[in-house]
């Protein structure tokens, strides 16, 4: 007697997701978000195919690639910082504000402090990082001492930071030679990062960004401090039970996170603009983009290098379609948000696997 083969489909829970599976899921998520954005574009009467062709053909030219590299720098540094906060269980949505404060700190040293000239840039760098770290310290202290939700407070701090920058460039710091534009004077050459000739890439900051992602990778996965920080993401009770000093680890994580965002801000004013300008032109949402960078990179500082490359590419694409199709600046948020949503959906689906047979 022959036994007839009956196909049987079983849905079962997947235990651990391997690295390869996670990478494939992320690529799928990016494709999904491109499809979603294409639908939105088509509904708004823009030919998505034409827009995408424009983005791809113009980005992958020499100028396009150097522009991507320039934009990658602040996003990468902020992403690495946010990874530390997220891994510790802190929802730091405030990289944008911390970056702006870093820019303010660097500008202060660059323009308004008498200092031995060769030290101007290194001191500006350090002061910018300290400003960013202090700006991040406020919400984490409020969380520890007064239970203020850090999602709301870090967001509010972003708006406050951009108010401060605008106040400075429209008011006391407005340059004497700027014809009424809301800019400070140009920085002296001793306060500027060297750039690769013919591009806008301020390579020392790029180097610092790659170094910081390696350092943070080692910190999080190979050191006791990093382990303790990851324990804190399980909540205060777990940390107390394992004898991990909860508050101090949270503070350290947030200081690193804010300090790195501050460094990104220093890079923007000392490397790209060479002056302080109004807030939305200094950052154009790098701090928010970094949230996606961290998530797309799987909360892994090394993974954040390819993920920030993609995001920098999308921001460059935004500039291209802004000029060619007359689309507003904020349009790229559709890509950004839908990448995040797609990752969530694909990962949730990936918790199960389908077995046939």
């Amino acid at each position, binding site marked *: 007697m022959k036994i007839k083969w009956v196909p049987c489909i079983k849905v079962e829970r997947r235990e651990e997701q391997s690295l390869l599976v996670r990478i494939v899921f992320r690529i799928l998520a990016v494709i999904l978000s491109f499809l979603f954005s294409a639908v*939105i574009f088509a509904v708004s009467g823009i030919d998505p195919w034409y827009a995408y062709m424009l983005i791809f053909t113009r980005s992958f030219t020499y100028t396009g690639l150097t522009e991507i590299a320039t934009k990658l720098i602040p996003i990468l540094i902020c992403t690495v910082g946010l990874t530390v906060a997220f891994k510790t269980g802190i929802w730091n949505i405030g990289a944008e504000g911390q970056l702006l404060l870093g820019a303010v700190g660097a500008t202060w040293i660059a323009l308004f402090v008498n200092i031995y000239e060769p030290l101007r840039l290194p001191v500006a760098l350090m002061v910018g990082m300290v400003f960013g770290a202090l700006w991040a310290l406020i919400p984490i202290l409020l969380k520890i001492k007064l239970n203020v939700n850090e999602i709301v407070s870090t967001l509010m701090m972003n708006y406050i930071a951009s108010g401060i920058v605008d106040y400075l460039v429209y008011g006391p710091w407005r340059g004497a030679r700027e014809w009424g534009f809301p800019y400070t004077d140009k920085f002296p050459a001793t306060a500027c990062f060297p750039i690769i000739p013919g591009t806008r890439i301020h390579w020392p900051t790029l180097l610092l960004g790659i170094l910081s992602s390696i350092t943070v990778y080692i910190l999080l996965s190979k050191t006791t401090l990093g382990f303790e920080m990851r324990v804190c993401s399980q909540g205060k009770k777990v940390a107390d039970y394992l004898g991990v000093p909860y508050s101090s680890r949270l503070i350290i994580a947030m200081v690193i996170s804010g300090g790195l965002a501050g460094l990104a801000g220093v890079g923007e004013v000392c490397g790209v603009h060479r002056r302080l300008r109004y807030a939305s032109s200094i950052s154009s949402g790098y701090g928010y983009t970094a949230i996606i960078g961290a998530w797309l990179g799987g909360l892994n500082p090394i993974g954040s290098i390819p993920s920030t490359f993609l995001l920098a590419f999308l921001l460059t694409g935004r500039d291209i379609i802004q000029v060619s199709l007359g689309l507003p600046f904020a349009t790229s948020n559709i890509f950004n948000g839908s990448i995040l949503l797609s990752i969530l959906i694909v990962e949730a689906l990936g918790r199960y696997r389908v077995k046939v047979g």
Partner: protein
Amino acid sequence: MEYITEFISMMINASTSILLAALGEIYAERSGVLNLGVEGMMAVGAAVAFYTTLSTGSLIIGLLSACISGILLSLIHGFVSITMRSNQVISGLALSMVGLGISSLIGRNLVGTPLRSSLRTINIAMLSDIPIIGAFFRQNALTFFSYILTAILWYILFKTKIGIAIRMVGDNPRSADSLGINIHLVRYGCTLLGGALAGLAGAYLSVAYTPTWIEGMTAGQGWIALALTVFSAWNPSYALIGSYLFGGIRILQFRLQPLGFSPPLLSTLPYIFTIVALALLNIERIRRRIGAPRSLGKPYHREEI
């Protein structure tokens, strides 16, 4: 006296959008769903309301389509966080980004266009002449609606079976499930209500408060509404009072400007006030007394403990 009445009237006028958004978010969070997408839903609501009112000439259609757009966006959040049980914080943030992007895409040709039909102020005879209290009776229709809505939503949440079910789903979904309450239905319902009201809140900005379209006109009001939800201890009636405080800060901004304060610095006042308010509140104590939804932000699944 008339000066104070006028000030209060402006304050109420400035707070309706935050109030509407917070009322919706209170319901979503009471059912256990944290939706950080309020800012994005408001932005889309504002753009859609302005666009449809401009092209159809009908305010009713404008307001309704803002509600529908809010519902559609919150449906995304519902799907990701309730059905797929993913991270609600990230999903909400993503929704805010998508919303801000879509709103600027809708509004790209509307900048600077004036709106012919906008919501006008209605003075209720006799009542609007009473000093101070009269301030409540010289408002536009949507603000009058917000008073009634606050009362209705408060009544449903605390005095009806539906309200008990919502609060139970947000507090202890497992026991709610064992009583036969459909967790997903309640959570979807509350999330969609939140979306509709966030859309309406955005519409208030673009067709009533300042009848124009400016990109980024929500300017963080959605985030302030989220803070107000906590500030009001998830109670619609406290949200009403709280929103007037925020409205007062906004009016204060305009009043201080002629006195020589820098506009960018004044613009930070509502955000500073939000942080200070949350700090003064020391949530944990209130949480214990009034009872915040204990399962807020936690997805529910029968198989998992």
